């Protein structure tokens, strides 16, 4: 379609994506503009933030490996606390703490998914709540003032909910040893990513 041939047309001409190195304390920002509105911007923000997404995957693997009750606890508590904490982050704004703390959920949940220890259901529920508070606040505090933060938080929460539900259910359905081992390997990689992030933040 040419602009000449299509008067009154409405088209997005280009989206330029630029990457540049940043100091670790600021390394969590992912200014996302999908062109689809704040709901999808929030969802894309989550999807483009490995430090937010990988702990959710690790939690889902850990919960799925431990059984239905654990998976249910993760699916129920994580999105609820993520949403509430996201709104809190929206109101309060960034806390300005070191980026090194972002590596903690990756290391802890990745290690738990890899080691697959047996814990009570309330333990999984507590981990879900803690991750929801940390992850939701981190993402919720970033879009404040820039776009419609409420919808962005809702978009990120929806993706977190879908992700934890799908991964936990997939791991729960894993019948063969090798599929469970694969899931635990993903957990160990998540922990390794956390260690790398920690090293980067403390360098």
């Amino acid at each position, binding site marked *: 379609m040419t602009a000449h041939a299509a008067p009154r047309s409405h*088209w*997005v001409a280009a989206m330029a994506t630029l990457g540049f190195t940043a100091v670790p304390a*600021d390394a969590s920002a992912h200014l996302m503009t999908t062109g689809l509105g704040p709901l999808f911007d929030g969802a894309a923000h989550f999807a483009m933030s490995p430090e937010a997404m990988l702990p959710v995957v690790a939690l889902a693997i850990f919960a799925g490996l431990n059984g239905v009750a654990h998976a249910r606890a993760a699916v129920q508590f994580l999105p609820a606390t993520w949403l509430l904490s996201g709104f809190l982050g929206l109101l309060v704004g960034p806390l300005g703490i070191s980026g090194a703390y972002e590596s903690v959920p990756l290391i802890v949940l990745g290690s738990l998914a890899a080691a697959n220890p047996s814990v009570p259901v309330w333990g999984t529920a507590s981990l879900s709540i803690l991750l929801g508070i940390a992850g939701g606040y981190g993402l919720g505090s970033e879009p404040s003032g820039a776009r419609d933060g409420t919808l962005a938080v809702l978009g990120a929460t929806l993706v977190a909910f879908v992700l934890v539900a799908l991964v936990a*259910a997939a791991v729960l359905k894993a019948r063969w040893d090798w599929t469970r081992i694969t899931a635990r390997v993903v957990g160990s990689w998540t922990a390794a990513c956390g260690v790398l992030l920690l090293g980067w933040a403390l360098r």
Partner: protein
Amino acid sequence: MVSLVSHAGAHEIRPAYLQIDQSSPGRYTVTWRTPTLSGMRLPVALRFSEPVRNVTEPAERNLPDSIVETRIIETPDVGLSGKRIEFVGLQATVKPSQPWIEFSANPGPFAAARVYFASGVHHILMGLDHLLFVLGLLFIVRSRWMLFKTITAFTVAHSITLAVATLGEVEIPALPLNAMIALSIMFLGPEIVRVWRGQTSFTIRHPWIVAFAFGLLHGFGFASGLTALGLPQGDIPFALLMFNLGVEAGQLAFVGLVLLLFAALKSIEVRLPRGMELLPAYLVGGLGAYWTIDRVVAMLGGLA
């Protein structure tokens, strides 16, 4: 255009964003957003090739994480076709293979197909009312075969009206159309309640007929998205096909994701708490009612 710095070690991605909307022949609104880091803006500026000129000077708005620059430009000849926008300074910060974009005067069929396909996907994903109607249908259908029939009927119906409306055979004013689309969503709320109570109705027995009937309405809504985009003269059937395929792809992706989620929640044995089992019905019906009232008020306001 994606350009990555060669020494990028952080995981950070801060995209700049350029949007150009054509407001009238030869005149465009340009929105250029650049990210800021520690109060410093990304040192990249726009430069338009001759004879593009500014109608209004760039107006800047500071946001906490970015600077948004808005201006109106115009071209005296054939619009932006064949023109180039350079990103001045981009070559100093990254290693781009092409620090500019060019608006092709004669885009190939693949480029045009991509534009219309992406617009179709964009339209369905932005159309929360269309998605909510499809979601309502998913709560009503009771078997895979019925699901197939219902989604197919909705697809066939909106494809028919999308085609006739785009070709100018039938025209429905936007305000009453939007009110009727909202009404179709509200209609599904009580039907979901009936399903949950184990009752039956014509809609529950034959959801595909209802999907077909209301799909005709939704197709007119899709047509508004396509006509707003603009149609290439002499290539309307092709644009129509690609736009429709984009709508179907977006719709199928949505249906697939919802079905996967339903299956996952079933295997995890997640159920809505006691007393909240009808939440989906209230969500669909309530939003449908809200939109219906809102759009009827807008329609009556337009008439007054």
